[in-house]
């Protein structure tokens, strides 16, 4: 009977499968897949950075290396992380991958990625790596004295402000200190219009924390020194904007970051703190908007958070030299300038930040300047390997303070106690 026949065939196939599968143990070996045949370089990328400029780089690569094609796979960051972990387990990772910041330390610590030392010894001088890169981009991608990642984009958080709204409220120039900022925010807030729209991610609060001399992790004492008065003041200042002065709305607990930009573009927020990625949506969303970018505020010092994508090479990559070759090409100075012109993305080379081309591109020059005083906050903590456990706790404290107006000192002290406990048990 037809059905029995099918069942028998399935049965045989299944027993073959199970025999093979049962031969498994929790062993990681290298298994080839179509994406890793001869002559294929696989790289993982974020779909947001698929620039024509990079496509040209890839085309050029394929011309210079006949017989080689680039398998350019794009994933959202959380998806990419899941995929990479599965790849590490099965031993078939890509030849090179982008990362949103922080993964380099994590995976270097876990032994999943390659040190770039031998590549740097061969090619470093020619491409001026690491010398031409902003210093903190090197330290954040290093582990135990060796460099494991190469920064490809470098961003920082600066203030976008609505020129018309500020002028109408009597401010021809943007604020430079916290007090001025509060003044401007109060003056521009009306019914349904906010002076400032904060972001829901705790990462953005680091602009305020850095400006108030707060440190995430102190390697000398192996503690998280965030229960200091400076930290409490910085967090309370943000919460008060929302709950006391009522110049800012509660941010939206969502999976994306669009909220503040949307309000800004719709003329419903006078100021937001964001990075160059919001330039295009703002221009596209409201071409008539009269706005500009201002330098970061000065609290006790002038500073802001940084971000940006780096690239790394997994240890089990089949074609690491090809991965390195692409890394070099993606960060050539002319490629960086091209990408900036095309997409408004900002770059890690010192020579980039001083290039005169920047003056011609709207808003970018200010970001170039910002990159010089911006600071990385998490590298030290990541090196302890406990960042993954501790950062969600900070996020929770941030949300409590901002959303529920819990007293900043309470939340922070609770957070710090728990974080220090985690740090001490290793």
């Amino acid at each position, binding site marked *: *009977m037809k059905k029995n026949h099918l069942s028998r065939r399935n049965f045989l196939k299944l027993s073959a499968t199970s025999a093979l599968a049962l031969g498994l143990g929790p062993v990681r070996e290298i298994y080839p897949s179509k994406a890793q045949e001869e002559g294929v370089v696989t790289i993982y990328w974020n779909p947001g950075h698929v620039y024509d400029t990079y496509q040209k780089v890839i085309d050029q690569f394929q011309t210079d290396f006949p017989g080689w094609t680039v398998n350019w796979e794009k994933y959202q960051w959380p998806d990419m992380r899941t995929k990479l972990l599965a790849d590490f387990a099965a031993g078939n990772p890509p030849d090179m991958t982008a990362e949103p910041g922080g993964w380099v330390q994590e995976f270097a610590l876990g032994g999943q990625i390659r040190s770039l030392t031998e590549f740097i010894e061969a090619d470093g001088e020619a491409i001026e790596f690491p010398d031409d890169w902003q210093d903190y981009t090197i330290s954040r991608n290093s582990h135990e004295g060796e460099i494991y990642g190469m920064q490809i984009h470098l961003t920082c958080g600066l203030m976008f402000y609505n020129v018309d709204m500020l002028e109408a409220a009597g401010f021809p120039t943007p604020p430079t200190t916290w007090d001025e900022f509060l003044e401007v925010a109060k003056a521009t807030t009306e019914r349904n219009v906010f002076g400032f729209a904060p972001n829901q991610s705790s990462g953005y609060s680091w602009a305020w924390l850095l400006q108030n001399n707060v440190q995430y992790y102190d390697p000398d004492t192996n503690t998280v020194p965030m229960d200091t008065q400076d930290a409490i003041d910085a967090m309370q200042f943000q919460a008060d904007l929302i709950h006391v002065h009522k110049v800012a709305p509660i941010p939206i607990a969502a999976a994306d970051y669009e909220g503040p930009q949307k309000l800004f573009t719709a003329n419903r927020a006078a100021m937001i703190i964001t990075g160059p990625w919001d330039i295009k949506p703002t221009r596209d969303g409201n071409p008539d908007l009269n706005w500009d970018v201002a330098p970061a505020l000065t609290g006790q010092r002038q500073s802001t958070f940084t971000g940006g994508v780096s690239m790394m090479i997994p240890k089990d990559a089949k074609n690491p030299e090809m991965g390195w070759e692409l890394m070099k090409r993606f960060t050539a100075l002319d490629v960086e300038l091209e990408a900036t012109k095309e997409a408004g993305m900002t770059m890690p080379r010192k020579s980039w930040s001083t290039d005169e081309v920047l003056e011609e591109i709207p808003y970018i020059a200010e970001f170039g300047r910002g990159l010089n005083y911006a600071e990385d906050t998490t590298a030290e903590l990541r090196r302890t390997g406990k960042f993954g456990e501790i950062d969600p706790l900070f996020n929770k404290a941030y949300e409590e303070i901002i959303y529920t107006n819990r007293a900043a000192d309470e939340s922070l002290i609770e957070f710090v106690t728990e974080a220090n406990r985690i740090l001490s048990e290793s």
Partner: protein
Amino acid sequence: MNVTNDKVVNVSTKFMTYLFLAFTVFIAIFPFIYMVSLSLQTEADIFSGIPVIIPDVPQFSNYADIWDLAPFGRFVLNSLIVAGGITISHLIFDPLAGYVFAKLEFPGRNILFLMVLSTLMIPFFVRMIPLYIMMARLDWLDTYQGLITPFLMSAYGIFLMRQFMIPIPTELMDAGRIDGCTEFGIYWRIILPQVRPAMATLALLTFIFQWNEFIWPLIVVQTTAMRPVTTGLTLFNQEYFTRWNFTATGAVIIFIPSFLLFLFTQRFLVRGVVLSGLK
């Protein structure tokens, strides 16, 4: 129950019923309408921060452009092959096991059923990495087999079929045995026709579930060409914002096969002739 009471109750229940229905239909369909609206908007509409229901200039071209932005047609084909293959496999294996648990008595039945049911109680991502390692060893990464094999049958389908087979009277089966039917014949000729509504439901739900499956294709697929629509659609998200219009366009397009299947299976949910077998 006196008649006047009944009448009053009748009219007001009818009214409440229609009100309830209208409300339910509205909230069910409104987000869909909004999705269609999003699919017809321009980039400017999307980024403006002002919600738009009826766009000024509906971009019907979005529906044409999407096939060029990414190999969308290939994504749809992949999804059809994978979801279709899995559904067929379920229809073959699940009812058989469901029948055994519903109608046959044998030692170890309850324990086995519990073990099968317990597989539902572990979230997929827990099995995910060992499964991935298995597929890698079989060299089935980035293939249709790799996408289909982990879902050939499921406790969900087995449980569903079991519940719908339980009410079938044993007399039908006995009659079959007396007529000289093989055990398999009883299953094939007597039991299965009785559970058409359940099979149709199983097919529909399995297809929809697999059609919308995201995480397994994410890790098992290595090249863009093998992506199904779910992971394919994420290509329209940029790093910090979503290209709503094309995401919505894609969403509307991939909605259609599920919808067609739904209409198709409605035929089987006609008032069944359950006891006809006895006549």
